């Protein structure tokens, strides 16, 4: 029987390109690559239900592989829709999103948390490839220039986000602050529990009255 779905040439080509980019990036952080090597032998399955695409990540000492097919055992399986994975990618606290979000987690979660930690701590040394191409002096100066640019950009972006956040929550009162929302949801949850208890108490009382009349 023929297997249906997206032409494997497309998915395989995309994964090959992604794998190449990933390994090139990892080669710029030897410490990160060594840490990934500790997860050699693990297979992480990322199963996207819509669109239906499966990706298997196998960290290795020399090279991390991305596969579209995998027949062997899977260490950790994460399953969900593309939107759920996008939410995870954009989350400020990925671990909390992974646990509390709509993604289904199967298998051993410890290696996955370790993988997430290693990826989060990656510190890519962009200077090395620049020095290889431009030479020691020009490469270092260009890297310094880029670092200063990134640093200024990052500081400006953080400041803008903070001010925007303050304006939306405190000045314009367009949406309530995060703590207020969390407090509201907590009250709501407690109210819901009290209502449910009251409802079951009423049910019990009704049943008792019916039994007495009978």
């Amino acid at each position: 029987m023929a297997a249906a779905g997206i032409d494997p040439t497309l998915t395989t080509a995309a994964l090959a390109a992604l794998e190449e980019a990933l390994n090139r990036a990892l080669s710029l952080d030897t410490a990160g690559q060594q840490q990934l090597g500790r997860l050699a032998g693990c297979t992480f399955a990322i199963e996207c239900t819509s669109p239906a695409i499966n990706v298997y990540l196998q960290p290795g000492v020399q090279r991390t592989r991305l596969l579209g097919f995998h027949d062997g055992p899977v260490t950790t399986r994460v399953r969900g829709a593309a939107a759920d994975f996008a939410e995870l990618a954009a989350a400020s606290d990925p671990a909390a999103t992974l646990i509390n979000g709509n993604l289904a987690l199967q298998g051993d979660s410890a290696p996955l948390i370790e993988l997430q930690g290693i990826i989060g701590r990656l510190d890519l040394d962009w200077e090395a490839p620049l020095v290889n191409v431009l030479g020691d002096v020009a490469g270092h100066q260009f890297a310094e220039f880029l670092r200063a640019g990134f640093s200024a950009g990052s500081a400006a972006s953080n400041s803008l986000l903070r001010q925007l956040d303050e304006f939306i929550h405190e000045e314009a009162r367009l949406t309530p602050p995060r703590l207020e929302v969390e407090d509201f949801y907590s009250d709501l949850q407690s109210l819901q529990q009290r209502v449910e208890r009251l409802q079951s108490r009423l049910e019990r009382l009704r049943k008792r009255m019916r039994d007495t009349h009978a």
Partner: protein
Amino acid sequence: MSDKRTTHFGYREVEEDAKAGLVANVFHSVAGRYDLMNDLMSGGIHRIWKRFTIELSAVRGGQSVLDIAGGTGDLAAKFADIVGPTGRVVLADINESMLNVGRDKLLDHGYQGNLEFVQADAQHLPFPDDSFDCVSIAFGLRNVTDKDLALRSMLRVLKPGGRLLVLEFSKPANPLLEKAYDSYSFRVLPFMGKLVAGDSDSYQYLAESIRMHPDQETLLGMLEDAGFVNCEYHNLTGGVVALHRGFKA
């Protein structure tokens, strides 16, 4: 009238005994420029097809793999990386020129220890029964004189539970793609072959042999008839190429 059995060599009918020699001449002629022509003809996509084959092989460290018609060793090199020092990969090819090119290339790239080179006929594999976890043949089956005999030979050398992977040109699923592919195969390929490898006849044979090769469903039936179980195939690039997979029970 001759009572000798015949088979096809491209679009020509030839005596069965003659086909192996004719195919050998084709590959003696193209061996030196085989990799370059593969990249040019497929636009590099043959690497994607082979990568997909590796994925479906599910080969793991320590396993043994036989790559038949392994030619210049693209698949064998990947398998050797995966099986590691405790595994074993045998690159087999009936053609001495192709085997020499493959052996030189892989040795130059530092492959040794877990890789062996064997000149062997796919119809009569010189290995004991139940020897390999995986057998692959990429773009080689269509050149074999008796494909059924070759498939049975592959089944014999596979371990129980082992898998066979046949990567081969096939029949495009879309009629429009088929027309474009026909024009490309019969007009562009021989011209390219003449220009780069100085041999248009071999690439004319390539196009003809692809058309004479069994389509997806027929090859699937041949795998089942040979004794493979859980057989399936995956169309690649709209069916220009198909990867068939079967298991030994």
